[in-house]
């Protein structure tokens, strides 16, 4: 475990020295596409459709970034990464950007030397069990066997939680979500724990979701967001502001359907004008075209539209907006002003 961390850190450190002068933005522009790391497959967040295109909540954010840079949401390639391989892949430069349910933590930011650029989903870690176990609270889980994805924050939270509550557990380490699902359904573990969004997504895939419950306790903060290597400031700014633009678009009621008419019609709201490139030279400041935000919004709509389409209450996953509602609507989604 320690060896692995050291290795990742060493890799990250080397990449830092490489990355610092090999600016990713130039590389990306030169090769004409973005290499985006996503998960190996998590319902609602990243999957392939029948035509072989990647789609999902995280994937759309990658695509929106590509649309902002190149005006084309398909100027992108995806690399599926597991909990363990994602950081090495980013550090080594195999991917330019990671959008993979990744929690923003101090050590990942400082020690592994990545820049987190915001949060596209506020999550927390939960527990899923079979209903017939008759457990109604996480504090009754003493002695349980727990399926846990290696290389994740959830692995560490789990240990903390059980230690703090003086309970014992037996971990069943697994590599991917698909594997966890199998193990859990085959009764190889009593409990599956990961981000609550992931639990909901996983439970939605069961034949009998009604026989499984997600316990009420949320034991951690899991702000999930995009990240790039340290030192990639110009590139990171773009990723950050694409995410912010999609959130501001929701605030302002700009959707995939009306973005074109908003950009051409004479809107009163100066912030919309700035966002859609009608006024000011914000695109130029980022090194992008003036209509970068228009292209990003056209990809999959604003934040709210992306959410509803892939993981919202009308999908099989059925997540409520909760913390991820706009700050004006009782959530904590709050993008800095666009000026």
């Amino acid at each position: 475990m320690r060896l692995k961390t050291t290795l990742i850190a060493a890799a990250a450190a080397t990449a830092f020295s490489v990355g610092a002068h090999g600016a990713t933005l130039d590389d990306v522009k030169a090769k004409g596409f973005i290499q985006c790391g996503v998960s190996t497959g998590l319902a609602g967040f990243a999957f392939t459709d029948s035509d072989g295109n990647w789609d999902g909540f995280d994937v759309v954010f990658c695509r929106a970034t590509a649309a902002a840079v190149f005006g084309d949401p398909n100027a992108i390639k995806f690399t599926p990464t597991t909990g363990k391989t994602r950081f090495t892949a980013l550090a080594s430069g195999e991917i330019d950007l990671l959008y993979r349910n990744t929690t923003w933590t101090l050590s990942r930011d400082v020690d592994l030397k990545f820049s987190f650029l915001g949060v596209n989903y506020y999550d927390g870690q939960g527990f899923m069990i079979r209903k017939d176990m008759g457990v109604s609270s996480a504090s009754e889980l003493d002695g349980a066997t727990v399926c846990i994805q290696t290389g994740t924050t959830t692995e560490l939270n789990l240990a903390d939680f059980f230690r703090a509550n003086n309970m014992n557990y037996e971990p069943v380490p697994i590599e991917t979500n698909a594997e966890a699902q199998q193990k859990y359904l085959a009764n190889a573990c009593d409990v599956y724990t990961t981000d609550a969004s992931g639990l909901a997504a996983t439970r939605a895939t069961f034949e009998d979701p009604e026989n499984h419950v997600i316990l009420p306790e949320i034991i951690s903060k899991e702000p999930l967001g995009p990240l790039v290597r340290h030192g990639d400031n110009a590139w990171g700014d773009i990723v950050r502001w694409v995410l912010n633009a999609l959130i501001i678009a929701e605030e302002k009621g700009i959707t995939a359907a009306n973005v074109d008419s908003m950009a051409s019609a004479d809107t009163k709201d100066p912030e919309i004008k700035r966002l859609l490139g009608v006024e000011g030279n914000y695109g130029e400041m980022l090194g992008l075209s003036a209509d970068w935000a228009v292209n990003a919004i056209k990809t999959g709509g604003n934040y709210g539209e992306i959410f509803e389409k892939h993981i919202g209450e009308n999908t099989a996953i059925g997540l409520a907006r909760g913390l991820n509602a706009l700050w004006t609507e009782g959530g904590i989604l709050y993008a800095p002003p666009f000026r």
Partner: protein
Amino acid sequence: MAGEKSVAFVAEQQIPPSPPPVRTGGALGWARDNLFSGVFNSVATLLSLAFVAYILAMVVPWLFIDSVWNASSLQGCREVDDGACLAVINERFLQFVFGFYPEELRWRPILAFVLLFVAIWPALFSSAPRKLLIFSALYPLLAYWLIWGGSLWGPVGAVVGIAIGWACIRFLPPLLARGRLDEGLAFLAAVGAGILGAALWWLFCVIAFEEALSTVLAISLEPVESARLGGFLLSTIIGVSGIAGSLPIGIVLALGRQSNLILIKGVCVGFIEFIRGVPLITLLFVAWLLLSYFLPPGTEFDLILRVVIMVTAFASAYMAEVIRGGLAGLPRGQYEAADSLGLDYWKSMRLIVLPQALKISIPGIVNTFIGLFKDTTLVIIIGLLDPVGLLQPIRADQNWNGIVWELYGFIALFFFIFCFAMSRYSMYLERNLDVGHR
């Protein structure tokens, strides 16, 4: 009178043989001999039959009777019937076969696959026309060009590099030896010159060569990037190139390991032991991540190519040991006989030693092939979408959420067909070469 009436007690014709008693002949007899030849065997037979019937009773209705072929989602399947939801395979079949290969270009990998059989035909069956071997030698170039597209001259240029290396190793030693160089040293020098020549060609001349020929005669196919390759296409590319590459390299390494030249021997032993001491997954990680640190930034070194190189290196090391086993199994007399005929090293190897050594090693060689083919599924860890890698994003699609057995079963079937074919072929080969009666 006496002459007319023949003796009655001698039969005039042979009595036709009567069928054996029912209990020993026919199906019943066979069953008695093979299935119920004792109390213990009878019980075992009945238990096994019950087990097989139990499994079939579960699988057959699920797979054949209640299965659903046409639906657009798992929910759709379950509404129709409760058997296997084969609709997912129906919908994603082409994705499993080609990955994300552009639809209108899919004839190219298909053609490459068909030609693969033409190319391996002379290698597999001695009845094939020998001239086809030329085609086999050129096949890798052709397949690469068909699958990846681009200008034909790129791969041709790469092959010219190999040809330069080969020519040095082939023709330099006698020339050098004439110049009073010791034979071993001459050979070493030739190998060095070959590697150097090929490297120089690749580094400095290939691009110019490609551009020059492209202006003269532009033959090119629409390029397809590696990221679009996936599924069985990817496993087959990695598996077949690994297999095709590891056998010759393995032979060279095995011979090198027996060499009297300390340098060659050292290099071979070092390579074999190093590769065997490291798990394949580590090598794949090196190919994926560490190489980017060593290559100058901005170099495009195709990921699949890197993986193929690593897989081939890995399989070659194992192959070398398998063949070394075969070489060691040959009686010394064979080597001495070859020497006494006055054959030089290469001739004695090619005509006398290797044919026999390879013959003994067939089971081990095929074993390595099958292992290598199955190991291709490891590439999922480094983000390549082989069939198993495709399975996860497909299962994460909301329409197909929760499907397990159908997809894994389908992939298992594919691997089974490939591996079973290989093992059958090796049995055929053993029978044909009559290994038992050496």
